[in-house]
């Protein structure tokens, strides 16, 4: 089971639940897009808050196991992935 | 309306004839009329020292001197520090100590430090800090500059012995 850490501002949709487990089909075949779609089925409105024009909301990046993955919705996850949606970092 | 005039000055040992505008500062004259862009501009109000030059033996902020005042003056800028390809000990020590990061303050520090060492060959920490307090560096935190100046002072003392 992969674990999605629900951004706290979306936890109104999950009834305050902080993490949600999602089934991963085959190793390396499930994409972040499928995960978001799955969450949207379970928590209607989830996708609308996270996506913008078929991509992640500007200013939101997907972090898988501590690393930002630039493929965004196309990134593939593993059976034990920890998934976060947080802003990317640049700096001065 | 603009008034142009000719200013003759000795810049880094060379007699120079510059056509300047009356409204120009010495900094502008050096950079625009003489093409010596080593002297930098950081504030134009005499607060940063990036434009430091030695004029008639005195350390000045060239942004505060009007170009016509330079008539007949002897001016030393960063471009005059090295003798040909022989770098001044200050230049060598700045490089060795990594006493510059972006380097925009460096010409001003070098000129101000040279002026200090011309007057005081063995300055204390406090004397260096006091003399160079008119020069701002936002990159280095000053420690490496201080060390470079002390080492250069020692070089100059041993070479003049």
């Amino acid at each position, binding site marked *: 089971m992969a674990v999605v850490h629900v951004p706290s*501002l979306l936890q109104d949709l999950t009834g305050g639940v902080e993490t949600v487990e999602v089934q991963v089909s085959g190793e390396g075949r499930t994409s972040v897009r499928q995960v978001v779609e799955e969450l949207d089925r379970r928590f209607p409105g989830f996708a609308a808050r996270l996506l913008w024009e078929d991509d992640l909301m500007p200013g939101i990046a997907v972090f898988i196991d501590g690393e930002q993955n630039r493929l965004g919705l196309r990134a593939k996850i593993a059976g034990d992935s920890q998934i976060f949606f947080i802003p990317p970092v640049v700096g001065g | 309306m603009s008034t142009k005039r000719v200013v003759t000055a000795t810049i880094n040992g060379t007699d120079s004839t510059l056509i300047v505008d009356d409204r120009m500062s010495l900094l502008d004259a050096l950079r625009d009329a003489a093409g010596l862009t080593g002297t930098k501009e950081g504030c134009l109000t005499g607060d940063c020292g990036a434009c430091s030059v030695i004029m008639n033996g005195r350390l000045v902020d060239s942004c505060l001197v009007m170009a016509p005042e330079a008539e007949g003056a002897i001016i030393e800028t960063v471009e005059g520090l090295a003798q040909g390809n022989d770098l001044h000990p200050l230049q060598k020590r700045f490089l060795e100590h990594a006493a510059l990061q972006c380097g925009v303050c460096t010409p001003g520090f070098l000129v101000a430090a040279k002026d200090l060492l011309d007057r005081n060959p063995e300055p204390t920490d406090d004397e260096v800090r006091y003399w160079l307090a008119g020069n701002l560096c936002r990159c280095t935190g000053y420690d490496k500059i201080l060390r470079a100046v002390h080492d250069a002072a020692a070089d100059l003392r041993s070479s003049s012995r």
Partner: protein
Amino acid sequence: MEKQTPGGRPYKVIGTRPIRHDGEDKVTGRAQSGADISFRDQLYGKVLRSPHPHARIVSIDASKALAMPGVEAVITGAELPQPHDRMFLSGEGGVENFRYVNDRVLASGKALFEGHPIAAVAAKDIWTAEEAVKAIEVTYEVLPAVTDVLKAMQPDAPLLHEEITTETLGEKKKESTNVCRHTQHKRGDVDQGFSAADVVIEREFTTSTVHQGYIEPHNATALYRSDGQITIWTSTQAPFWVRRDVAELLELPLSTIKVVPLEIGGGFGGKIAVYLEPLAVLLSKKTGKPVKLVMNRQEVFLATGPASSTATRIKIGVKKDGTITAAAAHLVYEAGAFPSNWAVMGSMCVLAPYKMETLLIDAFDVLTNTPKVMAYRAPSSPQAIFGVESVLDEIALELGMDPLELRMKNAVEEGDRRADGPKFPRIGLKETIQAAMDSEHYKSPAPSGPNQSRAVAVGFWFNAGLQSSATVGINMDGTASVVTGSVDIGGSRASMAMMAAEALGLKAEEVRPSVADTDAIGHTDVTGGSRTTFATGMAVYEACQDVLGQLKKRVATLWELPEEEIEFDGSAFQHADNGKDPMTVKELGAKLTATGGPVMGHSSVAPTGVGASFGVHIADVEVDPETGKVTVLRYTVVQDVGQAIHPSYVEGQMQGGAVQGIGWALNEEYVRNDEGKMMNPSFLDYRVPTMLDVPSIETILVEVPNPGHPYGVRGVGETPIVPPLGTLHNAIARAVGVRMRSLPMSPPKLSAALQAKGLEAIAAPTP
């Protein structure tokens, strides 16, 4: 495998201190920055700026200016293409909308901050341009302005943008407000966490607006040719982003623009955004001549940078043994006149150094009639962590615990989760705290004279990866040239050359590094985010591997042996058992022509494996109770630097960052009058530290190699600006028994606080 190459060999070049390759030009005055170039037929540009922090622009009449002899063009906001919504990645990590960049570069409709560009002029000389700017007649309808973040949040505050509502992750509120974004991070039940604590302390803090304060003002020169090709010469941290921004703003094809980065006199995050570049291009288009614009210092203060002022509330609960059970942070950040993401960044930094089961962070970005806030070295981290480090200092005193021990007890390590979620990879906070504890400074007796004390604080920055490109060419004498797209702001040419030399078995002096313009190298992101040595260094390393792969084939040809049997051992190509003399890259140079021609390697990377960096600072201070002046007696920076490539420049980053932080803590601030105008836009009145104001900053390099980089590099440059705020605050509190909780702790503020506290407090400090 500490202190070794990926092949397990000791470093030969990395960790040494060669003279930087561009050094000579910088000490002889030959180095050219943006203000140093000029063209025979160039025009001088000048910007007309709003004198009002908030005003409707009723009309602009430039006819008198245009009629002046020598004036060749005037542009106003009406001449920029219509603003459009388009998001892009900017220095602040999150994204910005080009609509607002457009409006920031040249006002349309309203002036939103003092110094907001209203029009720009090109003329034959700077004096004519200045006169022309004065001759432009602008009618303003002055509006009430708000420059204080907390006031700007009030429902009755003057509104900057009617169309802006609060955005909270995908949802927009209905009402117009200056609060443009709300961010939240939550873990567990924070109330339960606080009830499990033995000691809970909650405090409020404020910090003032500060400026990056680079010594070189912004500059840009542009030439718009008749064939539509554009060249921009500028001092920027991000030439490829300048190209993108100008293309986007002026609706030009990216490929028509070439940006030539000249030497840059400091940036610290403040030279990422475009200010003058689009104006120079538009003015050049109108006149057909190169147009040069250079800001003066006042313009730099009024209209560029700065870093957010903040109002924060920090609450931390601990067990008697010091274990943190819960923390809550409420962060309000000045955005300036256009939407920003600085509170977003602050929310990710504020609790990052510590482990805790429960936490709650709420952060708000707030619009104010001040210049749009830009990145400043570890942007948003100093203001956020300042409050946390102060509360922890109070907790340490309350528990009677050593302040470093308290930090050690709660410090994050590999596998712990950052407050905003993801797990940390290998990091060196614990090693850094330990090194601080073991330092001669910390072990020496703390200063114990009247009004003297010692204190510590921790700092953190993520560091960035982004994208970089590099090429490495082998010369016919076997030396190498390295070309990257990363502007060298503080010695990075040297570190690039050193990494290439290490990889190729050459000496640092045998590699010539250079920085290319946007036509001459693949896309490379900003020099910022402490990413250059890490990411561009990785591109250089990979390009060297490309070179080595090609060279191995050449050796195979020369030796008439199978490629697979040949190894490069870091110094030379070897063959295990056929008695061939090893062959170095140096020796191969002359043999390239005969074995197939020149060899050049290239690489473009978007690396993961970024290593976060932590620092601990120790300060000894003395306060003059009469004047409120703080003397920093001794100051030490301890930091995990991964692997130091050129230790002198690593130390320099640590010292320079610390001194900027000291300035932030003690003196620097935007002072504004009731109308919201800045009263101190000069280096005379905005006091950055001079050589007299700071002691020699001592440095301790802790090297915990970053496993995400072949040479263990982690970013270094930003973290050191974070701890000074808390360190000096705590030292002052311990020295005189007054917790200021408000920056800067300038002499007038501190002496007033001391007076208020009464003289007994000074005589017998009980912090």
